[in-house]
C-alpha cells in the first residue's frame, strides 16, 4: 500500500509540477536545464501514474510492481493459483486500468515514432527529387518556393533546408545566424526531446496541461538552439532574422485556417532574450535542478522494482 501511495503522490507532484513549470518564466534563463526538468517530469509522471495503479492491484503478491507483474503473468498462464488472497473488485479495476494506461502510453509513443520516421523518409525523398544545392549556401538544400521557410530534417544524416524565399528575405549575416540555429537543433537532437511530448499530446488531446507542456518545451528547444547559435553569430542578427521571418506572414495557405499560427509573444520572447539577455540562473541553482531531475527520474523505476 505504501508503494502505491508513494507513486500516486509522485504522479500528482509531477502533474502539479508540470502545471507550474508551464507558467514559470525562470525557464527562459536556462532553457537547457528546463528541458531536462521537463523530460524528468514526463517520464516520472507516466511511470508513477501507471505504477500506482499496478502497485495497488498487485499488492497481494507482495513483490512490488515489476516482479508482481511477472508473478501475475505466471499465475495467469498456470490457472490463477498464485495469489495468497483472492482478488477483490477494486484491484481488478486497478489492474485493468494500469495495464491499459501503460500499453496506451507505450503504443502511442511507438506509433508517434514510426509515423515521424515515415514522414521524414517521405520528406527526404521529396527533397532528393526537387531540392537543389546552392553555391551560396554550401551543405544546405534549397527549395524553390517564394514563402520563407528554414528547418531541418533530423535523423542520422540530418539535412538543413531553406526556401528560396528565405534567401531573398534575409541578409547574409542573418542567414548565417539561422543556419547556426538549425545546426544546433541537429547537434543536440532536439527532435528526440519533442517526440514524447507530441506523442503525449496525441494520447491526451483534451488535456490543457499537456498542450501547455508541448508548447512550452517547443519554445524552450528554440531558445536552447538560439543560445547555441549566439556563440557563432551576432545575436542581434538572429533576432532580426526571427522578426523578419515572423512578419513575412502572408503565406498562401491552401487550407486557410489550418495554419495554426504561433502567437507573436513566443517570437517576441525569443527576440527579447537575444537582445537583452537576462542574468543566467546561478550555477548552484542550475546544478540543483539537474540533480533534482535525475533523482526524480530514478525514483519511479526504483519504486517499480521495490518489494512492498
Amino acid at each position, binding site marked *: 500500500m505504501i508503494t502505491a501511495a508513494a507513486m500516486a503522490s509522485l504522479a500528482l507532484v509531477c502533474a502539479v509540477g508540470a502545471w507550474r513549470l508551464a507558467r514559470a518564466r525562470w525557464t527562459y534563463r536556462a532553457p537547457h536545464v528546463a528541458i531536462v526538468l521537463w523530460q524528468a517530469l514526463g517520464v516520472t509522471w507516466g511511470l508513477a501514474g501507471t505504477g500506482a495503479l499496478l502497485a495497488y492491484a498487485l499488492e497481494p503478491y507482495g513483490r512490488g510492481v515489476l516482479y508482481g507483474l511477472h508473478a501475475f503473468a505466471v499465475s495467469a498462464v498456470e490457472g490463477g493459483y498464485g495469489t495468497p488472497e483472492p482478488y477483490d473488485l477494486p484491484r481488478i479495476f486497478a489492474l485493468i486500468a494500469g495495464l491499459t494506461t501503460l500499453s496506451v502510453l507505450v503504443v502511442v509513443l511507438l506509433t*508517434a515514432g514510426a509515423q*515521424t520516421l515515415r*514522414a*521524414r523518409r517521405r*520528406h527526404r*525523398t*521529396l*527533397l532528393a*527529387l*526537387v*531540392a537543389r544545392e546552392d553555391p551560396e549556401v554550401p551543405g544546405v538544400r534549397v*527549395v*524553390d*518556393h517564394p*514563402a*520563407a*521557410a*528554414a*528547418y*531541418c*530534417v*533530423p535523423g542520422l544524416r540530418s539535412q538543413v*533546408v531553406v526556401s528560396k524565399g528565405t534567401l531573398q528575405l534575409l541578409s547574409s549575416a542573418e542567414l548565417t545566424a539561422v543556419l547556426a540555429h*538549425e545546426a544546433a*537543433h541537429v547537434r543536440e537532437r*532536439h*527532435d528526440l526531446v*519533442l*517526440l514524447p*511530448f*507530441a506523442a503525449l*499530446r496525441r494520447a491526451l488531446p483534451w488535456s490543457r496541461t499537456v498542450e501547455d507542456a508541448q508548447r512550452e518545451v517547443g519554445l524552450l528547444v528554440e531558445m536552447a*538552439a538560439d543560445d547555441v547559435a549566439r556563440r557563432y553569430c551576432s545575436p*542581434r542578427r538572429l*533576432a*532580426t*532574422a*526571427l*522578426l523578419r*521571418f*515572423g*512578419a*513575412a*506572414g*502572408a*503565406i498562401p495557405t*491552401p*487550407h486557410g485556417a*489550418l*495554419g*495554426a*499560427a*504561433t*502567437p*507573436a509573444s513566443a*517570437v*517576441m520572447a*525569443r*527576440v527579447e532574450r537575444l*537582445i537583452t539577455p537576462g542574468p543566467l540562473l546561478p550555477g548552484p541553482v542550475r546544478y540543483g535542478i539537474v540533480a533534482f531531475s535525475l533523482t526524480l527520474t530514478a525514483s519511479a523505476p526504483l519504486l517499480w522494482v521495490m518489494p512492498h
Partner: protein
Amino acid sequence: MDVIWAQSSAVTAREVGRLIAERDLAPTTVMTVLDRLTRKGFLKRTRDGRAWRYEPAESRDGYVAELMLEALDLTGDRSAALTRFAQAVSGPEAEILRRALTELEDE
C-alpha cells in the same frame, strides 16, 4: 526525375537513357532507377509494345507544395518530424513584429 518532368509526354527507358547520354549510364541502371521511382509512386507507367512508358505522377510544383506545406507546419497535425526556425504569425500580430524590427534596425 528532372529529365522526365521536362518532357511533354511519357518516355521510355531508352529515351531517358538518350536524354542523359552525357552521364554515360548503363541502360540497366536507368531502368532500375525508373522502376524504383515507379514503386515509390513518383512515376506512372503504361505498356507500349514491349517497353514501358513512364510519366510523372505529379508535377514538380506539386511536390514542392507538399514539401512546403510540411515545412511551414500547415498540415495541422503538429508533427515532430521537422524542427523549424520560426513560424510566421498573422494579421495584427505580424504588425507587432514589424514594428519591433524597425526599432531594432534604427538603433
